């Protein structure tokens, strides 16, 4: 789940995200307007597959898919600025009817696919419709529960068309929702809102060969090895405010080991000067970069954002007792955990659920125990709870990094006399056990970055009763009627300040029950070659913005 980004739609009328990304390297300043066209950019990626089918993708708007596919709206992510939703194919971010249930978008003029044919709203309607098909499930599907008739619609292959999306002409598209929804413009930036021409829709091949609308098109797809993007001749920069389209060619090298990729970028030789790593730099390489002036300049670290936490399964044995869970709050060695993730470069110690940079966050510490915990206090609470020989199973992914983190937790709890057995398993099994209906674990380290910068994104998916099991991320199985009421109330509150106060209240109320131990607000570090410029990581989302990266002219 480390790589999982949660997202919850919520009525949020103002984007008040704290700006600032001081850690971004100084070499971004040498960008002179439109300079940096041309060259072959290489992206080193650990994943072995890129799925370009917009219906099946969970890609962020600013990464791989954004280079090839445009949506109705998209994100404007810039260093030091707040994340914003901006028009992409549409002329604006949508116009809502008075009741907020009907949203209308109009397309820009002169938009074409790579083959020269015009992009129409019928294609966008079709693109959204096909995301409902069971054959193409797997993508971000927040729109499915919001559109009228979305609950039962089976997609265009078997279910005809979806009446709640109307296209009065080639340039206009209208969405009819079940209820007022102020954040529909954000929903329209999801991959499913990419135009897909019906005549070219081959569901079996689309994931490798999509019809391009962005600056690049897929020119070769070597399964598991590499994907090459070349220029889309029919992309017009004048219609696109967020994509630079710098390099002539973008090559994704797939299946790259994180350590080897980082070593290559540190060495910075040959073609690797034109490369950047899509994954986080491992802690060992962070230490190595510390002693390497050249590499240090090319390391880009985000501000502290996403929350890492220790989830306590509140429905298991001794963990049902709030005293025991509170004891664990004191027993955990957050400092050891921080070092295991790369020290200060890995993030800041956490005490709250709402993360820094989110509007309305109130700083507090319910369990003041210092950086390394308060073992005596933990023992005292355990004694009060009548637990003398507590033994817990910690479910962890079996990669090096996860195991290092698991051990840091283990040794911390051990100090208070809690025996922790680490159970390593592969990523899929772990995710499935945590979010599924057979939660066979006591505790687990997890992290959560919402796709959407709001306090709601921090609280609702992790602590609402409705998110327990069935693929939901309330992995602590925390259920409290009072908290559920607070969440509902906050969701329905349209005044931002009032909503924020409610979320802050929920934050504290939840931690009184101690279903999780907040560990750390993560910082993500990325490394790029010396010839790569305009490479930055904003505060949200804490990933590089692929759309703006250019190469220096050599």
């Amino acid at each position, binding site marked *: 789940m480390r790589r999982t980004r*949660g997202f919850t739609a919520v009525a949020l009328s103002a984007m008040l995200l704290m700006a600032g990304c001081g850690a971004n390297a100084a070499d971004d300043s040498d960008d002179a307007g439109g300079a940096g066209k041309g060259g072959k950019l290489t992206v080193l990626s650990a994943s072995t597959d890129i799925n370009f089918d917009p219906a099946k993708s969970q890609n962020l708007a600013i990464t791989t898919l954004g280079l090839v596919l445009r949506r109705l709206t998209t994100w404007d992510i810039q260093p030091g600025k707040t994340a914003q939703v901006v028009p992409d194919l549409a002329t604006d971010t949508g116009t809502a009817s008075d009741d907020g249930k009907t949203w209308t978008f109009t397309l820009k003029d002169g938009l074409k696919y790579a083959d020269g044919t015009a992009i129409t709203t019928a294609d966008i309607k079709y693109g959204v419709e096909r995301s409902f098909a069971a054959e193409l499930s797997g993508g971000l599907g927040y729109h499915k529960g919001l559109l009228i008739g979305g609950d039962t619609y089976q997609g265009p292959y078997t279910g005809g068309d979806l009446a709640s999306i109307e296209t009065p002409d080639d340039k206009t598209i209208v969405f009819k929702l079940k209820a007022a929804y102020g954040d529909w413009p954000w929903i329209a930036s999801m991959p499913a809102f990419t135009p897909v021409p019906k005549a070219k829709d081959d569901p079996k091949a689309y994931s490798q060969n999509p019809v391009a609308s962005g600056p690049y098109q897929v020119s070769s797809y070597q399964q598991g090895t590499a994907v090459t993007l070349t220029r889309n001749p029919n992309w017009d920069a004048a219609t696109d405010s967020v994509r630079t389209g710098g390099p002539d060619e973008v090559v994704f090298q797939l*299946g790259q*080991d994180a350590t080897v990729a980082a070593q290559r970028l540190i060495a910075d030789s040959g073609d690797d000067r034109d490369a950047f790593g899509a994954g986080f730099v491992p802690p060992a390489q962070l230490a190595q970069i510390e002693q390497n002036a050249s590499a240090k300049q090319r390391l880009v670290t985000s501000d502290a954002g996403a929350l890492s936490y220790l989830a306590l399964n509140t429905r298991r044995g001794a963990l049902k007792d709030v005293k025991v869970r509170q004891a664990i709050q004191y027993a955990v060695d957050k400092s050891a955990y921080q070092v295991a993730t790369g020290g200060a470069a890995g993030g800041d110690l956490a005490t709250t659920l709402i993360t820094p940079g989110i509007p309305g966050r109130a700083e507090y510490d319910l369990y003041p125990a210092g950086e390394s915990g308060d073992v005596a206090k933990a023992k005292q609470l355990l004694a009060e709870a009548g637990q003398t020989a507590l033994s817990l199973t910690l479910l962890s992914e079996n990669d090096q990094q996860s195991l290092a983190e698991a051990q840091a937790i283990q040794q911390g709890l051990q100090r208070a006399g809690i025996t922790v057995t680490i159970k390593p398993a592969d990523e899929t099994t772990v995710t499935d056990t945590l979010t599924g209906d057979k939660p066979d674990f006591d505790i687990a380290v997890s992290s959560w970055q919402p796709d959407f910068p709001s306090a709601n994104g921090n609280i609702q998916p992790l602590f609402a009763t409705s998110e327990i099991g069935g693929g939901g991320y309330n992995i602590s199985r925390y259920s409290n009627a009072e908290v559920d009421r607070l969440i509902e109330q906050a969701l329905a509150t349209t005044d931002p300040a009032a909503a924020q106060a409610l979320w802050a209240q929920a934050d504290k109320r939840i931690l009184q029950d101690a279903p999780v131990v907040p560990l750390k607000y993560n910082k993500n570090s990325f490394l790029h070659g010396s010839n790569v410029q305009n490479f930055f990581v904003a505060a949200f989302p804490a990933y590089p913005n692929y759309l703006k990266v250019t190469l220096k002219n050599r």
Partner: protein
Amino acid sequence: MTALKRLPGVLGTLVVISLLTFAVFYLLPADPAQLSCGRPCTPDRLAQASAFMGYDKPWFQQYLDFLGGIVTGRHFGAGRAAVDCAAPCFGWSFRLNAPVTRLLLDRAPVTFSIAGGAALLWLVIGVGAGVLAAVRRGTAIDRSAMLLSTVGVSAPSYLVGLLGILLFGFTLDMVPVGGYIPLAESPVDWAWHLILPWTVLALLNAAVYARLTRGQMIEVLGEDYIRTARAKGLRERRVIGRHGLRNVLIPVVTVFGLDLGTLLGGAVITERVFSMQGLGALLIDAVGTVDLPVIVGVTLFSALLVIVANVLVDLVYSVLDPRVGKETTSR
């Protein structure tokens, strides 16, 4: 034909292996449909995804469908989005959106390139060193060759491989540190990118062959017909080349055949170390994502490799040693 006579046995073996693989992975707590459900995942959508992929059926039913697909092909879903997996269909990977057969064919060249080049190298080095040691037995050459080979057998491949990457790839910046270039694209780049894995694997494996060759050669050199050949005044080079080597090659070929058959097991580690996306990497990936069709496909493929290797060994036997009759098959 021996190969034909073996067919029922071969098929039976493959059925047992696939059944075993199916059963074990069916027991995994992970639900493959969950991965394809998307976010947010509702129980309805999960059930739909599961039904589409056929994971809602009991495991033996899934297994029978799998067997049937090999003969008749399979269909998933309906209408335009229907997935059509033509016979012989060894399953469909919903994660990679491709038939397993094509995935195997796509990835196999990588694994075979690594193994093939390395095998050639180690065969030459191993047999060469073994013969040299046997002919010069008891000398410093013999002792150091055997000591070196013991050292080679004792070093874990991943450790040597990673050190090789660090030394020759990063510190000396002499060779590429991984990544596969298809042979058709550029034979020079292909070989250049494979040079490190070839060397590492060859050095480690050559050790086994050197010892084997030496032991066999010493034994053969003591045989009567060699003495006769020498007594007849044949030159030593000819004695060794003509009479000695031929008999030494029989056990070497046996081991070589088996090694080639098992190359997939080693590929898992090799490909991980050298960041190459062959069958081993495909398999590990599939296990991590509970991509059952791919797991079964690769497992069956690897079992098939072993069987083919065994048949080939038999064939080479009959070429090397005309005396070898039918009974070799049961060896």
